[in-house]
Every structure is written in C-alpha cells, then in structure tokens.
C-alpha cells in the first residue's frame, strides 16, 4: 500500500495551492516518479491495494493497482509532464492573464485521469471522469475560432456518455448491491442470465464509446481537438481517448468476466466491424482535411478504431496489441500534437498552405513530427509498427480478415497523409503572407522555437523509438501479466 499514498496526497495537495508552472512541474514530476516506482513495485510484488479512509473494500473505496493500470499511470504522468514542460511558452503567450487558472485546470485534469486509471471502484471512476471532463471542456473552450461551439458539442456528447455510464453503474448496484469492481465481479457470475446485467453492460460500454469517440459517435472530437489551445490539445488528445479505452478494458475484463464479455454477449464480431468502419472512415475523413490539427484529430478517430477492434477480437494477441497501442498511441499523439503546437506557435496557423517550406524554418520540430508520423504509419523501428503487428496477428488468429484489411488500408492512407505534409513542408517554397495579403519574396531563415519547447518534444520523439525497441519486453513482462489468464 505504501507508494500510492504519497502519490495521491501530492496530487490532492497541490491542486489547491497558489499555482504556477513550478508547482505544476514539481507535482507532475512527483507523480511520474511515484508511478514509475509503483510500476516496478507492482511487477515484483504483485497487485497493490490502498484503502482510502481505512475501510475494507466493499464498504469503503479502494485503489487497486495491477500491472495494467500501473503501466497506464506511468504513461499519463509522463505525457502530462512532457507536455507541460514543452508548452510553457505557448501557455504564457495564450493565457497571460490566467496562467494560474490554466495550470489548476491542467492539474485537475491529470488528477482525474490518474484517478480513473487507479481506482477500483465503479462509482469513484464516474466521479473522476466528471473531473477530467469538466476541466477538459474548460481547457478546450479557451481555444480559437469555433472552439466554444466545439466545446458545447463536446459537453453534450460527453454528458450523455457519462450519464450512460452512470446508469450502467446504477444498474450494477441495483442488481449486486455493490460498487467495488472486484466485489461486483465476484457476485455477477451467478446472475449473468439477468437482463439487467445485460443492459448494465450495454450502458457502460455505450457511455465509454461516446467518451472515447468511437466511430458513429465521434462527432465531437475533430473540432474540439482542432480548435483547442495547443497546450491543452497536447494534453487532452493523447490522454482522453486512451484512458477511456483503458476504462473499457477494465470494465469488460475485470468487472464482467472475459467469458461473459466475449462469449455470452456475442457482440465481439459486430464491434470489430464497427471498428473497421471507424478506421476506414477516420482515415478517409483525415484525407479530406486541409488543416493539420483537424487531420490529426481524424487520425485519432481511426486509432480509436484500432484499439477497440483489437480488444474485441478477444484473443491474447489482439488485446495485448490494444493495450500496447494505448501506450504507443498516447506517445505518438503527444509527439505530433506537440510538434503541431510548435508549428502553430511560430506560424500562427496550421492550414497546409502555412506549412510551405517549414522544414527550412523549423527543422528540429519537423524532424520530431516525422518520427511521430512514421510511427503512426507503422514503420519498423518506431513503436507504432509493433502494436500494429500485434493487432494484425491477433486479427489473423481470430480469422478476421476485414480488420486486417482495414489496418493495412489505414496504414496506406496515413502514409499518403503524412508524406503529403512532408512534401509540402520540404519541397514547396516558403512564402510569407503579410497582413496586407500580398506575398513577400521567400524568406528562408532558421526560426526554430525556443529550446524549452524543443527538448521535451525531442524526448517524446525519442521515446517512440525506445518504446519500439523495448515493446517485446513491454508485452511479455507487463501486459501479459496484466491480462486475466482465461484469455488465450
């Protein structure tokens, strides 16, 4: 029980004090070190339980840490910290008057995410989901152009999703009398035949699908992420959808047992097809965009399809691939969104036209962007290749060739997408439109963003390659430990 204590306390403590960048960075560093410590502790000693308030689980709330969520905790803390360090200047630029409020919301968002991942209580998950959502709405709402409208859409969809989840938890309480995940899991098998259990499952899943922007209900995501302030997009885009996928894994495998989720429900097949649709549509819509961030947002929609599809294949390779992809996709999304944020910081725009000749201007940021892009396409040394490989082998094992085709198709489209950007950035001459609209002669000078924005970006880009190199270890030593034994 020991480590989380400090960890929870740090977070809870610094949320309220007089905030500034230093406190935030310190707090997140603390969170990162303790979650890394926690991961190694869990790997050597097995799952940890922390009883909040000192009450035994079914009566009180407990945090339950196993290798799966310890891994995700590390990812969240690392993403939040890197993004925080990398966006310090753009935050100062965009919210000069409200830095305190911005960092408070930022930290609260991270607290919500960390809490969702570590909690072992179905209702506590909802409460933390609310914290993460409310702060997320506020952070996105401060963006440019149509951000308020996009946020309003997000609020509607997000609230409906959260209500569905709450309703599902309510049903579970109705039928089991308990809110603790392990306790529910112990009671449920006797009453799997009940229709209420069936609907509780459907409601929980439907709510989480909305929150993670799974294809037919993805409408809120592209605008919200495209118009969000860079610093917020770099935090929310990598985390929200991934953490929701984690919540889906948690509910489907650890609250409902795998036998129920995969065999009794019989919805695996249609959901994988829905994921195929998500991947294809996300890729095609991304292809139609003329704005960098919006294109990236549609790529996320497709990536959500990867993870959901991989999970619902229901075999070990598929689920490992999905979990590995949660980690990898968080890192990849972080890299491309941070790079896009850097470009935006200098160019004041992210339409493709603005990117002409950008390689000459900002070579380092673009190099990191290319690494992220290669990873999303799935080129071997980077991590994207490995999770895709697991997903594809899972799909072949399950005999689901539609999913294989969708994955390959999406890789192809991603290649087209990113090489188009690279081509524009590398080969097209740079023109600088001034305020009167006519073009000045090409100015080609080195205008890289400050070091404080570059270093975190490069660290993140490097992590993509590291994750790729060590992904075998990650899967055999961490993820396989985390999955229940029944899954073969």
């Amino acid at each position, binding site marked *: *029980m020991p480590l989380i*204590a400090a960890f*929870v*306390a740090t977070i*809870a*403590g610094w*949320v*309220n*004090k007089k905030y500034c960048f230093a406190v935030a960075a310190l707090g997140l560093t603390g969170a990162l070190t303790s979650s890394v410590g926690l991961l190694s502790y869990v790997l050597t000693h097995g799952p940890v339980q*922390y*009883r*909040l*308030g*000192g*009450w035994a689980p*079914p*009566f*009180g*709330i407990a945090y339950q840490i196993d290798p799966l969520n310890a891994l995700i905790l590390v990812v969240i803390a690392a993403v939040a910290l890197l993004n925080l360090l990398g966006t310090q200047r753009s935050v100062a630029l965009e919210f*000069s*008057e*409200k830095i305190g*409020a*911005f960092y*408070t*919301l930022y930290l*609260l968002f991270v*607290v919500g995410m960390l*809490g969702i991942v570590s909690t072992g*209580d179905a*209702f*506590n998950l909802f*409460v*933390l989901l*609310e*914290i993460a959502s*409310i*702060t997320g*709405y*506020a952070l996105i*709402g*401060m963006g440019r152009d149509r951000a308020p409208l996009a946020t309003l859409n997000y609020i509607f969809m997000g609230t409906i999703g959260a209500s569905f989840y709450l309703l599902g938890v309510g049903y579970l*309480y*109705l*039928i*089991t*009398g*308990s809110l603790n995940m392990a306790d529910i899991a112990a*009671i449920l098998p006797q009453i799997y035949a*009940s*229709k*209420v259990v*069936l*609907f509780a499952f459907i409601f929980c899943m439907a709510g989480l699908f909305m929150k993670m922007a799974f294809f037919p209900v993805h409408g809120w995501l592209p605008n919200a992420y495209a118009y969000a302030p860079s610093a917020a997009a770099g935090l929310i885009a990598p985390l929200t959808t991934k953490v929701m996928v984690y919540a889906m894994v948690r509910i489907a495998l650890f609250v409902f047992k795998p036998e129920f989720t995969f065999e009794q429900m019989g919805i695996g097949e249609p959901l994988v097809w829905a994921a195929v649709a998500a991947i294809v549509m996300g890729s095609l819509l991304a292809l139609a965009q003329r704005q960098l961030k919006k294109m990236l947002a549609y790529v996320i929609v497709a990536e959500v399809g990867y993870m959901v599809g991989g999970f619902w294949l229901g075999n070990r390779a598929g689920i490992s691939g999905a979990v590995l992809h949660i980690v990898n996709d968080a890192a990849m999304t972080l890299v491309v969104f941070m790079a896009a944020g850097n470009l935006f910081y200098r160019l004041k725009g992210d339409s493709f036209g603005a990117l002409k000749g950008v390689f000459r201007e900002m070579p380092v940021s673009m190099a990191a962007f290319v690494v992220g892009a290669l990873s999303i396409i799935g080129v071997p040394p980077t991590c994207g290749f490995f999770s895709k490989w697991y997903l594809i082998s899972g799909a072949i094992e399950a005999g689901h060739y539609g999913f294989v085709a969708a994955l390959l198709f999406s890789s192809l489209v991603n290649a087209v997408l990113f090489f188009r950007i690279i081509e524009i950035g590398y080969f097209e001459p740079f023109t600088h439109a001034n305020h009167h609209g006519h073009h000045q002669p090409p100015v080609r000078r080195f205008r890289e963003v400050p070091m404080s924005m570059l270093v975190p970006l490069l660290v993140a880009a490097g992590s993509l390659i590291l994750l790729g190199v060590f992904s075998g270890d990650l899967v055999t030593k961490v993820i396989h430990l985390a999955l229940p034994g029944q899954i073969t």
Partner: protein
Amino acid sequence: MRIFGLLTVLLCGGLLIYHTADFPAWGDPASPASTHLSPYYIEHSIDDTMVPNLVTAVLADYRSYDTMFETVVVFAAGIACFFLLRAAKSKTPESMLYRHIPTGITLRIEKGSKTPPDSADFERIDSVWVPYDLIIKITCRLLVPFIQLFALYVVAHGHHSPGGGFQGGVIFGAALILFALTHNLSNSLKRINEKTSALFAASGVLVYAGTGILCLLLGANFLDYSALAPLLGGDPKMAHSHGILIVEIGVAIAVMAVMVWIYYNLASRGRHDEGL
C-alpha cells in the same frame, strides 16, 4: 432523418422498458441493494463513527473519497467559469452614473471627466438602475441573516438530520446571491470580492484534502479520521465524527464560495463592473 431519430428513440425506449422486467421489486427488502452492503452500514455506522445519520456516515466517511472529488468537481466548475468568462481587462465605460444620495439626483459623467470623490453622499449606480426598491431591500436585509444562520445550522446538523456541507453551502451561497440581487454587483463585491471568493473556494477543498493528508501524516490511510483522535481528544470513534464535521465545513466553504464566484462571472459577463 427525423424519422430515423424517432425510430432510434422508440427502439431504445422499448428496450429500457423491456429489461425493467428483471428489476427487483420496488422497495423489496430482499433485493441485492438492500441485502449486500446496506446491512453493514445500518448495523455498524453508529459504532464506527458515532454519527446517527447514516447517510452522512456513508457519504463523508465510508465513501469520503468520492465526496472529496465531488467537492473538487464543484471547485473545477467555479474555476472553469472564471477561466472561460472572466474578461482580462475591464474597459472604462463610455459614461458612468452617480447618484447624489441626499437629493436623489443622478449625474452622468462622461469618460475622462472628473469623478465625484468617494464619500457617503455619492454612490455609483448601474446603467439599468431601478430607482426605488425599498421594500425588497428591507425584506432581504431581514431575511439574509436568518438564511445564513439556517445554513450554518444545516452544515452543523448533518450528523443528526438531513443536511451537511453541500446543502448548507448552497443555502449560504444563495443568501449572498440574494443580497447581490437586491442590491447590486459592486455592493456585493465590496463585501466579498472576487479574490476572497476564489480563496475560499480553494481553501474549502484544501480543508478537505488537508484533513486527508493530516491523517496520512499521522500514520493512517488517506482520510482515515481515527488518526485524528490524539489531536482532537477523545477516542477514535469520536474522531470519525469530528473528522466528518471538519470536512463538511470544508465542503460548505467551497460550495458557498463557488456559487458566489460563478454568480459574479455570469451576472456581469465576466467584466465585474455592473450587473444585478
């Protein structure tokens, strides 16, 4: 498209009705919800926490961690409102209205002109000022103290009867908003300014989380109030009761301040110059 929507709604509604067939009967004492955890709470809460009101015991002790985050949600809502609405710099308006109280004459002062000195004779009024609201003002002046007293009672009495931090905080906040409604924004800002309300909101959450951390420092788990026994005097059971009171007060402070803070931002569109 509308027909499609209607069909979806009908389908979902039908499914919702269909599965209620398997619900436990209404108020069934043998239903899982009343046989699994509830008996423990009913039988043990008074022994564990010395709190007669078992809803409060569950809310602020057994599931205290949830309640802490509910308070954080309230705080987040307040700060989100501030973040989105608050205008960075207030523009000096084109003209300002001042009233000379003894004579009741209203002066209109253009931008850049000299403003009257701060004295008891002049008060600045809103552009939508309504001349005489004596009855409303007096009624509220009579009501507000009683509402506030009742709010404190609700906070303190959560142990024995329905009530607690959220309810009490809302009532207290409502009293302050009533005051702001019957007078005007600048008047209420003079009593509780923005900084104070933000500070109260944060410190309310801090009281709650701080209690948890204090328990942690005293060697127990986060929010395990029995660790507070040596500080508060009395036995660990009583400490649970006191711990609940402390966090309820924190909740009340946070809720009250956030209500007022949100009201300020909404009423003046974030400019904090005039409004009800």
